[in-house]
């Protein structure tokens, strides 16, 4: 036997390089994406503001402490002005983040929680499982969420839980379809066969390979579900069936602000801006996260 196996490979890369976990690389990739970092920062600030709202606001959100100044324009004392009920508008916006963010994130989380398993099951097993899940999906995609919300709202008394439920109930469809398509394509790939050859169970394959390889549609779905839920809240508020007052929500403030847009512009502008900034930050953050978690996108 000819000896050719010796000393062919010697390390090229500098020896000081340590073992790094994939998450470390993902983190590095994320950090190098300026827009995503900015989005993440804005989002964290918003979340912190929502959590610590009582600490950073002068009055409670429902306190009608400034009745005599109602509808006042922004000033150094009231940064975002005062609303028609004499409440500090800045306070309302900060507290509004609680509802809007939680509706957005709960709905998105639910849609991912429902959408991923169902999508993966449908995509992986195909056949009857797929048929049944597809029919369920069809049911949900056929009924416009707004109308379902009106009906369900009437049935259940409406309010915050209904809106979250509706947003979750309708948000998962997108995620599910995305994951299903992805899993369907991946199922034929040889690395799935390879895992089978190693004795992996379908559950393991779905968990570890298929879902991991679907991060990008999952994150896209997640990120899309957030504005959808927030917009749903806003739309329902416009129709007068959103979260009941006086709980501040951006959607409600926007739809009320519309009435004041001719003159008291601040009542429409601030909540709209808050909503837009949140969604923008979320999507930047989400895009960055997706790029970071998907090593194959690195070159782009």
């Amino acid at each position, binding site marked *: *036997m000819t000896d*050719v*196996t010796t000393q062919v490979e010697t390390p090229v890369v500098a020896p000081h390089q340590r*073992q790094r976990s994939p998450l470390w690389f993902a983190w590095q990739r994320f950090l190098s994406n300026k827009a995503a970092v900015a989005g993440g920062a804005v989002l964290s600030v918003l979340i912190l503001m929502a959590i610590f709202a009582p600490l950073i606001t002068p009055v409670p959100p429902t306190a009608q402490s400034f009745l005599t100044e109602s509808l006042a324009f922004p000033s150094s004392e009231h940064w975002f002005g005062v609303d028609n009920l004499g409440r500090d508008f800045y306070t309302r916006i900060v507290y509004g983040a609680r509802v809007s963010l939680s509706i957005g994130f709960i709905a998105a989380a639910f849609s991912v929680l429902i959408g991923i398993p169902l999508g993966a099951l449908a995509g992986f097993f195909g056949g009857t499982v797929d048929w049944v899940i597809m029919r369920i999906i069809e049911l949900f995609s056929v009924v416009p969420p707004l109308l379902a919300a009106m009906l369900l709202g009437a049935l259940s008394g409406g309010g915050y839980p209904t809106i979250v439920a509706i947003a979750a109930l309708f948000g998962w469809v997108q995620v599910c379809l995305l994951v299903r398509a992805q899993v369907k394509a991946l199922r034929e790939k040889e690395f799935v066969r*390879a895992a089978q050859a*190693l004795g992996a169970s379908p559950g393991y394959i779905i968990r570890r*390979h298929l879902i991991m*390889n679907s991060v990008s549609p999952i994150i896209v779905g997640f990120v899309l579900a957030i504005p959808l839920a927030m917009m749903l809240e806003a739309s329902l508020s416009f129709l007068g069936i959103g979260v009941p007052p006086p709980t501040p929500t951006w959607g409600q403030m926007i739809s009320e602000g519309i009435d004041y847009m001719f003159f008291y512009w601040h009542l429409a502008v601030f909540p709209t801006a808050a909503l837009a900034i949140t969604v923008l930050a979320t999507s930047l953050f989400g895009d960055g996260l997706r790029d970071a978690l998907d*090593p194959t996108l690195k070159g782009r």
Partner: protein
Amino acid sequence: MPLVEIEDLRVSFRQYGGAVDAVRGVSFTLEDGESLGIVGESGSGKSVSCSALLRLLPGTAEVTAAKLKLDGIDVAKARRDDLTRLRGKSAAMIFQDPMSAFDPVFTIGHQICETIMAHRNVSRRAALNEAEELLLRVEIKNARDVLNYYPHQLSGGMLQRAMIAMALSCRPKVLIADEPTTALDVTIQAQILQLIKKVQAEFGMALIMITHDLGVIAETVDRVLVMYRGEVMEQGEVQQIFDAPRHEYTKQLLASLHASFEPSREAADDTPALELRELAKTYIVRRRSGLRVRHVDFQAVDGVSLALPKNRILAVVGESGSGKTTTGMMAMRLTDVTRGQILVDGTDISTLSREALKPWRKRMQIVFQDSYSALDPMMTLTQIIAEPLHIHGMGTAREQQEKALEWLERVGLDRSFASRYPHELSGGQRQRVAIARALILGPDVLVADEPTSALDVTVKAQIIGLLKRLQAEMGLSMLFISHDLSTVKSLTDSVVVMYRGRVVEEAPTERIFADPRHPYTRALLAAVPATNPRDKRERTFLSADEILAGIPRMGAAEAGTAANDAPQLVTVAPGHRVETYVTA
């Protein structure tokens, strides 16, 4: 003025945790009409250098060169439309991975035609005719139909040939062929090489042939460039490189060509490690005629029986598409078996449930043919290699990782690769990862589907050495599916030849190379490229009909079996069986 002038080309890829220097100061030139071969280990920067010449590298690549000229134009500074003019016209490229080189939503015909029409002012009809002609010349028989096929309807080998046809359709001044024949069996390979040479003579085209197959080099080129680790080790006339290699790496390269291994030791136990009995696979495929769609059965594997004795290496060779992979997949229970039995250590596993199969999975492993898609793109190499341990719950996470790193080294990859992802590897590197994953559990039976097709000779020798050693150490039995007859010859104990879903000949390795009986086996052996430029020769090729006509005939008495209309395997010598028509 030379056609290609490269001086001090450097390419590095930006990466987190340091840049990868893929090419580190490569220089060479190429004259009109000249053929240059580039050989070198896998990952040595062959593909990257050539892509740099056409400026096709991704955005993460940083390219610097003292000179990077193609057809007199400085590629590094060329504007976009200059590049468009250069590409295809001055240089065309046959890409290494044909499977993903075609746009999936356009027909093959469209894609060849648009190439022709992009460079020459011809009508669509004329372009179509030319495309058909080209396809015929790359041995695609049903060229007229194939023009209307979409890429996913062609096999890997056909795609590679279509890719070649497409590159030739540009009539470039220099053709860059990056491993143009890896997906092809030797018979087709030989025909393609002949075609390239002919076209080259016809149009006075220059050629850069990138390959790790020294046989291909010997057959086709005038001058050779040997690359290693992103650098040119030596270059010279082909004969001189073969006869008097100067550089150490080149010497190793050539030595590996003649590597041979000791035959396996006889095992005491004579229950075969793996036995297939009358294994068959029928695919239902759709045929459409007009609006009607018919479903017809397609016999991908048609009653294959073979036995892999313990501690032995059995080669399965054969035409592309003859059912080798399918057989291997069925043996692993990864594809449903239509008919037949799979015996592992005497136990039939063909009907076991998934749960019942799990312990067997530990003992049987497979290395997939397509290493690119066999690795999860979202996992690092450590994760991939450690996955079997993870699935079977062996050891702590730390131990798993440590073991994975060990295996990374055993297959000749540096530990620094541990946190890379598959797409950051060259083809050969990926294949080695796949091998490491298959072996980490210490299986008894290994189905290796073209495990070395993407490896350069030295690494190949190293891997084969490894497999051989493991065979000795762990008592590994291996089904070695391959197109590479020289490896088969040096590595395996016996050979099974498959043709159109059936086993047509079976014999101990030495015997089959010395005394092939079946016309297909003969054709196969005749097509093996020379191992020295001196031995290159003109070849003739048999058509499918000629092969059928050449099947041996025997009287029933002589064969020892009853007469039959269909051919059957007849024993002609101890351990040597050939498909024969048995007549009364």
